[in-house]
């Protein structure tokens, strides 16, 4: 599985981990990872993500929309330096808590 989800014991936090290239091929899996869940806090873990393209950015926007838009609480963690650069160029740090 290249998209793995984990819900915290208290059921409050959903962690989505991406492995490999984060691009359009993961569209379906990524959407299924959160679609039928109650989202209060979401963590997207990119520790094992090697690359991220603009459709992945679009997927993050969909997640954000699903999680409440401006009221959402989404953290993007463990980005590699290449992935961080892409997020920085897009100024996605204005929408997501990126570390």
């Amino acid at each position, binding site marked *: 599985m290249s998209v793995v989800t984990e819900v915290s014991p208290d059921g409050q936090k959903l962690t989505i981990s991406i492995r490999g290239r984060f691009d359009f091929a993961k569209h379906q899996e990524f959407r299924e990872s959160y679609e039928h869940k109650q989202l209060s806090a979401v963590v997207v873990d990119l520790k094992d993500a090697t690359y991220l393209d603009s*459709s992945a950015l*679009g997927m993050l*926007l969909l997640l954000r929309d699903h999680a409440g838009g401006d009221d959402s609480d989404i953290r993007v963690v463990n980005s590699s330096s290449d992935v961080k650069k892409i997020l920085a160029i897009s100024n*996605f740090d204005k*929408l997501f808590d990126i570390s």
Partner: protein
Amino acid sequence: MTNVQPLEPLTILIAEDSAADRMLLSSIVRRQGHEVLTAANGAEAVEAFRFQRPQLVLMDAMMPVMDGFEAARQIKALAGETLVPIIFLTSLTESEALARCLEAGGDDFLAKPYNQVILAAKIKAMDRLRRLQATVLEQRDQIARHHDYLLNEQRVAKAVFDKVAHSGCLNAPNIRYLQSPYALFNGDLLLAAFTPAGDMHVLLGDFTGHGLPAAVGAMPLAEVFYGMTAKGYGLSETLREMNAKLKRILPVDMFCCATLLCLSFQRRSVEVWNGGMPDGYLHSIASGERTPLTARHLPLGVLSPQTFDDRTEVFPMAVGDRVFLLSDGVIDTCDANEQLFGVERLQRVFAANRRPDQLFEEIEQALRDFRGEARDDVSMVEVSLLEAAQLSPPALVYSDSGQSCPLDWSVSFEFRAATLKRFNPLPYLLQLLLEVHGLRAQSGALYSVLAELYSNALEHGVLGLDSSLKRDASGFTRYYQQRNARLDELQDGYVRVHLQVAPKGEGGCLTIRVEDSGKGFDVDRVMARPLDGARLSGRGVSLIRQLSRNANWSDDGRSARVEFFWEALA
């Protein structure tokens, strides 16, 4: 899955010179449910194949007239891409002879005397292969048809889009660009157009995704860009409109990274907004320095109109300086090990560049060396600053007849603080003035003067900014930072614009007066300066004096007055 499929009866050709063997084999094969054709030698077998197209062939190797090897070769040639399995029937045992059967195009062989069970199994296995091949061919043809269809759709969409997108000025002498012919379907978009004042707006955009979905947003974006640029709107208003439109029409996961430029040849500056594109570069020819034009904003179509940030940055330029923009296809090019080309490699190409005109070719070469092949989604554009006189913006086209031209009127506006913060009244004023046919021939000068008068009144008057800040490049940046900050904090103040049109002989006269609530300036000192265009600061006043008639300032510089005249229309 294929194993459980009931075997469909096949038409099987049996080529065997011994009549007894032929009969024996025919009856075995018939009993297995297949139809049988027979041939007594290779030549007959080829003829039978030619006219009756059996689906499988059982072929004796040694036959008179034409042996099985030659017949197999000819039958394979006739069959073309369709797989017609040939099973050699042979009493040969040496491995070399058996190998020859396969080399001649045979797919398998069966040793004499025949074992019915093995024969049935082999026919079944060959039939599976035959069907697999047929399915592959069918799917290949289907894909090819779809592909043709798609290409045709793209061709039509591109033809329509080219009509919209190329109404601009990409062919102006100061623009060089490189784009794949189907860049649109990679989501790349390049637009350029002159403003009424002769400034140039340039947009390089990159929509999310590929194919038609990436292309659909381009059309509305191009229309807003051209429509608003032609009417004299600035970057901020155009950006707000483009963002609002894309936000409204695009799905949540689609957006458009874009860099927008406004090159002012008269003010010798470039205004930049970059949302999500890779760094562009402002290349100063004199110092060799390249100033990065970094993305400060989210892409277009992400934020709501309320939260969208239209703030731009302004940089001074000298004649010959260039602005270089590129799409992420350049820095995101991967080599065989998934390493990105990256900004550092790009900067090494910059550093090695000796002839500016060769830059695109050198970047392309570097990408090819890095990746081993060229990519088709790389867009680059370079815009240089020329002397204003070297460019000739196209004349505006008017569709009305001129019969209802207003010739004797006046109007006054007062724009107060809350309006000055976000509203740009210039396009409205210009539209109004261009109802007067006599003024249309000088619309460029009219717009430039109006724009200078307004920005002087706003920036030096209402906001109290000191134009001498713009003496050097860093001051230039500071000036525009202060402008944004003071505009954000603005509580009161006004700019008044009075327009008066009066007939005069066969022609007429327009008087423009602009007043502001600021502290004014030392008119005599400013007027004493020579009329030159080389300094970064104070160019506004000298521009106004060169482009209009009888320019003068009163009320300690708080009130500016200029005139425009026109003669009888031909």
